[in-house]
């Protein structure tokens, strides 16, 4: 599966000069916990709800402070065409909960650890189903193939 196919949530992006108050309002309205920060077509940062709290509110920044003053940069990215399992490796190497997905160096979406957990749960469920049946119905034998 390609990484872009594992992205389950829509992505939202803002300009670097967006205010942190508007960024928070956008997160609330869009139901997302992070925003990509785009300067034109260039991905220059990511701002999360955690960034707004720890780097904005906790430091007493004014509500009209710019997003690029609290965002995380540079951005750790992953190619949209890469195998989804490559995302596991990237998450394992960096203390991140989200990765920016890029296609030809342009932001196209965000993938989170939650997205990977959903895929893992689906894969495990598919594996466990026949094993569970065997455990619960231990006396069920497979039919002997006919040799006639």
């Amino acid at each position, binding site marked *: 599966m390609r990484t872009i196919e594992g992205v389950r*949530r829509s992505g*939202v992006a803002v300009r670097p000069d967006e205010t942190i108050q508007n960024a928070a309002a*956008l997160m609330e309205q*869009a*139901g997302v916990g992070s925003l990509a920060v785009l300067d034109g077509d260039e991905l220059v940062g990511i701002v999360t709800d955690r960034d707004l709290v720890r780097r904005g509110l906790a430091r007493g920044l004014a509500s009209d402070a710019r997003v690029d003053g609290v965002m995380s940069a540079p951005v750790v990215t992953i190619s949209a065409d890469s195998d989804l399992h490559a995302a596991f490796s990237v998450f394992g190497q960096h203390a991140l909960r989200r990765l920016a997905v890029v296609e030809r160096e342009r932001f196209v979406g965000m993938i989170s650890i939650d997205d990977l957990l959903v895929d893992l749960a689906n894969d495990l469920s598919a594996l466990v189903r026949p094993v569970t049946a065997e455990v619960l119905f231990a006396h069920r034998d497979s039919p002997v193939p006919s040799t006639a």
Partner: protein
Amino acid sequence: MQASPGDRIIIKGHRIGEPDRDCEVLEVGDDGAPPYRVRWGDTGHESLFFPGSDATVQHFDHANS
């Protein structure tokens, strides 16, 4: 996904009890492709939107507008 200015995008809630979200498409990319410039809710906040599998488009009937 293909959208036109004036269309509405619905984003399904991700958790039990979480309401759906919606926004109005203001601008689209080449051939109606994303990303879209959208306006959210009553506050009028605008942003770029990159639709995922949780989003669907309600097309606006431009002919009858």
